[in-house]
């Protein structure tokens, strides 16, 4: 069993820990890895190296571009067929393994439970796979009659020169439905992140703006970067419905292709996962003049803050009153649970290494429980997610990321869709101190001397556990049992360990109760055998006989 450390007088300077960690690496690697580790000082601007190539053999937790594109961004949209062009694995592993829940009414299309693949064979590698891909599209159309088909490239597709975009255009012509391709080969970029960008570009080019539905209703917005893991988006849908705000489209939890097609007709975009969807937020503003703000619905306080910020934007007395009424009612419920649980969690230590967004958001929940986040990091976030968007102009695009297309967006030609009114509104609110298009990043909100690590390796994980002896470690499935074998409970913050939702007020209550379960239990005390501390029994019955 791990002996806990007392950090009540503040966190220790982790610089010696960083030195210890890198001392095991060959010198060139040590130099590189050191740039991805920062002893945090929230008062000072510090640079962390992020979004650079993974070191071969280091045991990373990162995935690939395909996972970021198909698995993350497009996967949750229930009524399109996501056809994976490649050998079978890529399609198989992304089949229902992310918990993007969706709720389709009887008779509506829902392909979430299906996995579609061209299952490339060696002859397709040798002679090309375009003919098979076209045939697969025809068969998918004949069997399922979908509204749209997305085609996703995997590693070999780019190498053998199959053109998924040309096939898409041709099949779109032939079948008369929207068909679009993604060049999201796994080797592009350095992580899932490139896949987000490619997905954003593809959706923006091929889907957003296809349906200029006339606007109706007063308060309309999109929720960007919320994938409805464990029902997170359901929680938010209910919340906004109650206060009277219409969520036109969610990118992409519990979404339909149609909702994305008219997502450009809203008044505001709110961005939950900055990393995966900030591109669409930016592009919608450039093309249509729709402003965006950062949102956070993880934690009761964060939820209240975001709700108030949204209400302030719409500036309507009735809406504001309703928002305050809901906050008062829901916050009171959260308070009851928090009061019961906080005495058991106060002062405990957490660390988290999650994708590109949650390692920051979930610190809110731990704060509310009086817990310290001693170390945190992302798999694939960029410097702006760590340090804030202010550093974007200084980010250098390196050779590994240069080939990811950055779309040039022009103002829409449809005069009625260009939102001069919102531009004026944004200017007015900004003058009053309201922050648009901004994200301050994770580091300014972390404690002094907390340790920030980008793309944490297995070796680093072991060292962190040894040094901090945390009460809870938050990461994913690959780390879960590694960490738990060390006697430290691990909470999965990708899959939520098959629980959730964790967003908004109800989600906070769920999370608090989950923390209580994990931190209060005595199961960890069963790990040591009772006879470990007893003198060893020598001799045996046979000898004595």
């Amino acid at each position: 069993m791990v002996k806990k450390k007392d950090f009540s007088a503040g966190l220790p300077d982790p610089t010696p820990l960083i030195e210890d960690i890198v001392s095991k690496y060959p010198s060139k690697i040590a130099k590189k890895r050191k740039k991805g580790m920062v002893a945090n000082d929230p008062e000072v601007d510090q640079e962390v190296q992020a979004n650079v190539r993974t070191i071969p053999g280091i045991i990373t937790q990162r995935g690939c571009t395909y996972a970021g594109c198909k698995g993350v961004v497009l996967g949750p949209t229930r009524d399109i067929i996501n056809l994976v062009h490649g050998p079978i694995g890529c399609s198989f592993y992304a089949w229902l393994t992310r918990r993007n829940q969706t709720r389709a009414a009887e008779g509506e299309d829902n392909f979430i439970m299906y996995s579609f693949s061209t299952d490339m064979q060696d002859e397709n590698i040798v002679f090309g796979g375009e003919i098979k891909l076209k045939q697969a599209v025809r068969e998918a159309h004949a069997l399922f009659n979908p509204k749209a088909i997305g085609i996703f490239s995997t590693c070999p597709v780019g190498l053998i020169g199959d053109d998924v975009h040309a096939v898409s255009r041709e099949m779109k012509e032939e079948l008369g439905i929207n068909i679009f391709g993604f060049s999201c080969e796994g080797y592009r970029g350095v992580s899932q992140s490139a896949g987000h960008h490619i997905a954003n570009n593809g959706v923006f080019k091929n889907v957003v703006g296809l349906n200029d539905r006339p606007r109706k209703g007063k308060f309309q917005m999109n929720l960007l970067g919320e994938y409805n893991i464990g029902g997170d988006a359901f929680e938010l849908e209910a919340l906004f419905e109650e206060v009277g705000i219409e969520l036109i489209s969610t990118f992409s939890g519990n979404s339909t292709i149609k909702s994305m097609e008219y997502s450009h007709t809203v008044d505001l975009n709110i961005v939950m996962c900055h990393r995966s969807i900030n591109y669409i937020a930016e592009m919608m503003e450039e093309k249509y003049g729709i402003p965006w703000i950062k949102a956070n619905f993880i934690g009761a306080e964060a939820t209240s803050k975001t709700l108030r910020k949204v209400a302030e934007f719409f500036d309507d007395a009735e809406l504001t009153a309703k928002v305050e009424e809901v906050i008062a009612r829901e916050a009171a419920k959260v308070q009851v649970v928090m009061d019961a649980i906080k005495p058991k969690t106060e002062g405990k230590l957490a660390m988290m290494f999650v994708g590109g967004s949650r390692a920051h958001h979930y610190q809110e929940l731990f704060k509310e429980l009086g817990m310290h986040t001693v170390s945190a990091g992302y798999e694939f976030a960029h410097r702006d997610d760590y340090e804030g968007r202010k550093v974007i102009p200084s980010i250098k695009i390196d050779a590994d990321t240069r080939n990811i297309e950055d779309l040039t967006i022009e103002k829409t030609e449809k005069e009625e869709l260009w939102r001069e009114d919102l531009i004026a509104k944004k200017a007015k609110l900004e003058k009053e101190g309201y922050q648009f298009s901004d994200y301050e990043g994770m580091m300014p909100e972390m404690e002094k001397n907390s340790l920030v690590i980008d793309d944490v390796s297995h070796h680093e994980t072991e060292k962190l556990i040894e040094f901090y002896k945390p009460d809870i470690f938050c990461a994913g499935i690959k780390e879960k049992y590694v960490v738990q074998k060390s006697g430290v409970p691990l909470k999965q913050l990708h899959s939520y360990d098959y629980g959730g939702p964790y967003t908004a007020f109800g989600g906070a209550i769920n999370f608090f109760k989950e923390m209580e379960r994990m931190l209060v239990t005595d199961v960890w005390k069963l790990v040591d055998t009772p006879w470990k501390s007893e003198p060893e029994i020598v001799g045996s019955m046979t000898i004595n006989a």
Partner: protein
Amino acid sequence: MLLRHTTEKEIDRKALTVNPAKTCQPVGAMYAALGIHGCLPHSHGSQGCCSYHRSALTRHYKEPVMAATSSFTEGSSVFGGQANLLQAIGTIFSVYDPEIIAVHSTCLSETIGDDLGQIVAKARNDGKVPEGKHVIQAPTPSYVGSHVTGYHNMLEGIVKYFAMKTDEAKRQVNILAGWVEPSDMRELKRITGLMGVKTVLAPDTSDVLDAPMTGKFEMYPKGGTTIPELVSMGDSMKTLALGEYGTKGAAVALDNACKVPFDLLDLPIGVKATDRFISALSQAGAVSVPEAINDERGRLVDMITDMHQYFYGKRVALFGDPDQLFAMCEFLLDLDMVPAYVVSGTPGKSFEKRMKEIFGDKIDQVKFKNGANADMFQIHQWIKQEGVDLLIGNTYGKYIARDEKIPFLRMGFPIVDRVGHSYFPTLGYMGGIRILEKMLDLLMQYQDENCEEEKVELVM
């Protein structure tokens, strides 16, 4: 309905796979490599594969699954991944210190034509492989075969590298385990122990993927076939290869290189396949079958005769890997059950031949298919056309089972929503008893829940 778009109407599919009954090679290579003591699997490709394969195995076993990757970038995909692999080998040995690195490839490195053998040789020449340490390799192109093929290829790579013939013949029998669970590997060792035959089991994932909680993470758990054991396989009297699709290549390699003759057997699932295994083991080791084994067999047959009424005539749909399916079909026939639909995504011409052998004159009763487009969508369509009483397959079967209200037995890879498969065997007579217990439980529960109230039986 979860699978609301699946209808009984079939079209002649040539290109589209829907809900595959297989996955790709490297995960099998990773699993096989984990059955070697002190081994770190390494995926030579872009890192997504490695993460997916580790995750799949972890979800199945609820255990740590370690592996490294070459983390290809676009540059290495164009110019070759040699530099990545060389750097990886250096980093792995200095940071993680395994005894062996077992490298497998992916569709990426295979398509660009990286020659693993040449790169590994270069690593040795460049002094990147420390004294006494090993790097082995197996090609595992994802666009050929399935995960079972990857297991097959890595196992072949392992014995080719290690097994050595010396002048000293050893009184031992090699057992090449097909892709079975750690619990099954443990059961194989128990059986050979009862039989009094000294064996080398490879691979052996027991004590690797069913490791105890001790409060200390062991990167290389105590289990796994050791290097001396692997080397000694070249001096064994005989090899028993369990499951053609998982082990044939390794058995042939041992015969070619070290002149160790082999018997290619089915996985010992059910009565007859276990009988054949026990006979082969008794002959190979020149030992008689002990009373304890006869008793286990007797208990299994006793259970079949006791419960026959619940099995007779029940229609079963199965999907999974060929070696398991062959043995299970034979077992179900012995129970007078009807394996009505059998599907495996794993290609191979011998599938049809074996099915015909197993079913004999009953072959008309079964619809079977393997290879491309032999997927779960297909088996679901067949079920829609004419229903079954039991579905057997991996976790993905639960969506069909719920839609069609069919009792569902989880068997195969992956099982990600239940535990037990890593702790209790399905191999051997005891494994047969467990399969029967689980099937009976499902069939009886179905009856309990669905029969008319006045028909609920106290005693069954």
